[in-house]
């Protein structure tokens, strides 16, 4: 990876961190409602994988922890924040919320709130790609706990059976809501679980964006090459609770300290400084600029945007004036 790309990735990951931290504040300020699942600690996963993909061309789908995957796919951070603020200018017009970020123009096919729900949807997107004969792939990001749903097994079986162009990325943050993986799951290494479906897989350090990228390049080459699905497990850690209602009491401070020493942003920053490609001052200036951009651009846009009209509450339930509803009569 080129130094310029590393520096850009550092900035993108730092932006992601500050974006999510600002979401936390906005939630406390009651500008964001509902459930809010934040990404700090896991930034290298989405950034490393999607850096290796053709964003805007490849399809991306994920769970409810979706803000950063959408932004890295090309969504405007202002429209993502406006969605969280429930505004008409939000990516999903204020109808979705934090767990349902959609930006179909950038082929970000949504965040879904049922654990494991996107597994078959991703396989279906891949089926459509296969039928149409394009060179796109579908990338599905889900957490480790989703692998205990039936959809995991049903979808991996079909994806392998029909050689569908889908990359399943498992962000293994070691907790399913508040239950540690060894208390919920018989096999800790998730990449081993797909052997039963003859799907090639790998496990990588999810805190080091360069290693994630390297593993993703290999995975994507496999999938785009028409060889069927691939499963990539990334070992990572979320700093905050599962959602805002989670006090995080189930984890030890020691464990949190261990993981914070391998922070994906600090890891890349220090490497760039050590290599003489970045100074600490440049990093601090970058951070300041990001904080200003979030406050002056992102938050202001969301705050000043209008809410949806009450009169449109029934819009988008069913298709408008679809002639086939009346048997083809227009």
């Amino acid at each position, binding site marked *: 990876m080129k130094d310029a790309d590393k520096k850009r990735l550092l900035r993108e990951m730092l932006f992601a961190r500050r974006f999510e931290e600002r979401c936390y504040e906005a939630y406390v300020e009651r500008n964001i409602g509902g459930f809010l699942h934040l990404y700090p600690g896991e930034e290298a996963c989405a950034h490393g994988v999607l850096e290796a993909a053709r964003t805007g061309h490849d*399809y991306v*789908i994920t769970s409810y922890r979706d803000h950063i995957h959408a932004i890295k796919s090309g969504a405007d951070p202002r429209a993502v924040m406006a969605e969280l603020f429930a505004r008409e200018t*939000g*990516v*999903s*017009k*204020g*109808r*979705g*919320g934090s767990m*349902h970020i*959609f*930006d*179909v*123009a950038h082929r970000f*096919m*949504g965040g*879904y*709130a*049922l654990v494991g*729900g996107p*597994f*078959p*949807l*991703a*396989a*279906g*997107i*891949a*089926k*459509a*790609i*296969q*039928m*149409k004969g394009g060179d796109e792939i579908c990338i599905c990001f889900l957490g480790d706990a989703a692998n205990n749903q*039936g*959809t995991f097994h*049903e*979808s991996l*079986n*079909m994806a392998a*059976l029909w050689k569908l162009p889908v990359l399943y990325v498992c962000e293994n943050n070691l907790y399913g809501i508040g239950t540690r993986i060894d208390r919920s799951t018989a096999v800790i290494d998730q990449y081993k679980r797909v052997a039963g479906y003859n799907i090639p897989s790998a496990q990588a350090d999810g805190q080091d964006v360069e290693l994630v990228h390297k593993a993703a390049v290999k995975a994507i080459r496999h999938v785009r090459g028409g060889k069927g699905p691939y499963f990539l497990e990334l070992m990572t850690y979320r700093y905050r609770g599962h959602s805002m209602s989670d006090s995080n009491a189930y984890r030890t401070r020691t464990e949190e300290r261990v993981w914070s020493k391998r922070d994906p942003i600090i890891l890349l920053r220090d490497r760039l400084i050590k290599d003489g490609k970045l100074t600490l001052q440049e990093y601090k200036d970058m951070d300041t600029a990001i904080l200003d951009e979030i406050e002056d651009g992102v938050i202001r846009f969301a705050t000043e945007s209008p809410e949806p009209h009450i009169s449109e509450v029934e*819009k*988008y*339930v*069913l*298709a408008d004036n*679809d002639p*086939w*509803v*009346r*048997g*083809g*009569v227009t």
Partner: protein
Amino acid sequence: MAQIMMWEAIRRAHDEEMANDPLVIAMGEDIAVAGGTYKATHGLYEKYGEQRVIDTPISENGFTGLGIGASFLGVRPIIEIMSVNFAWLAMDQLFNSAAKVRYMSGGQLLAPIVVRSPGGTAHQLGSQHSARMEKVFMGIAGLRVVTPSNPRQAYGLLKSAVRCNDPVFINEHELMYNMKGEVPEEEYFHPLVGSEITREGRDVTLFGYNISVHWCLQAADLLAQHHGIEAEVIDLYALSPLDRAGIRTSVTKTHRAVIVEEAEPAVGVGAEVMAILNEECFFELDAAPVRVSALNVPIPYNHALEKAALPDANDVVEAVRKMFGI
């Protein structure tokens, strides 16, 4: 007009829609090489190939979700769930994904899938193969629900459902695939909304759908022969949305209503039609509406018990006689 069987009508709709659009696919358990449990996809595998006529694993939630995901990119899957009892397993994807994705994406994503599934009770299939689930589907916003009572509807509803941009659930019936009926020779698209007056009458309206339309028609004949009561029979082929105007119009004429359903009474079509009668035309009613339903039991295996649990034309006649005090 040709007389064909229900399964042939459904097969013809598949064939025409697959010929019309290369993105229409059929998928489900045993539908390709075997041609479908009820022959609804017979011969299509040979004609359209394994990419478009797909035998799925027995993974109802998985393959329904796969169909929904494919529909995001413009593929139009006709998904057969072999028995409606198995559709319980696909509820997650049907309700959480297909029915909601258009709304929660602010109109960006459509899920134009068709799910067809035979429901109802057949002959001694027991508790877990006798579900009548239309009430469950029709309670969910974002999903259209239709249910054919004859081959013409089965053909035309499927044709329209494939082309409609909304997810559509088609509730078929295990016992009706060999029922014969007239289907137009030319291409025909049936509306996904509304209702049909199957028999004109002036004294009482019998509301039925799917198999219960036939019980209503038998009952109407008996009522006319033995009691001089002219019943109107309304076929509610569209269960969601229900035809409020059609329900109102008929009862405004007859002033009496009996709703006939194969399902248990609670939270069902009968309850919903009664609510509509209250909301739309309460003061037109000359008698309290009545519903004729199954008993609130899991369907028994024993033939006599099974029969006792289910309504039939005689129950409809009895309900009308009681309403008229005769």
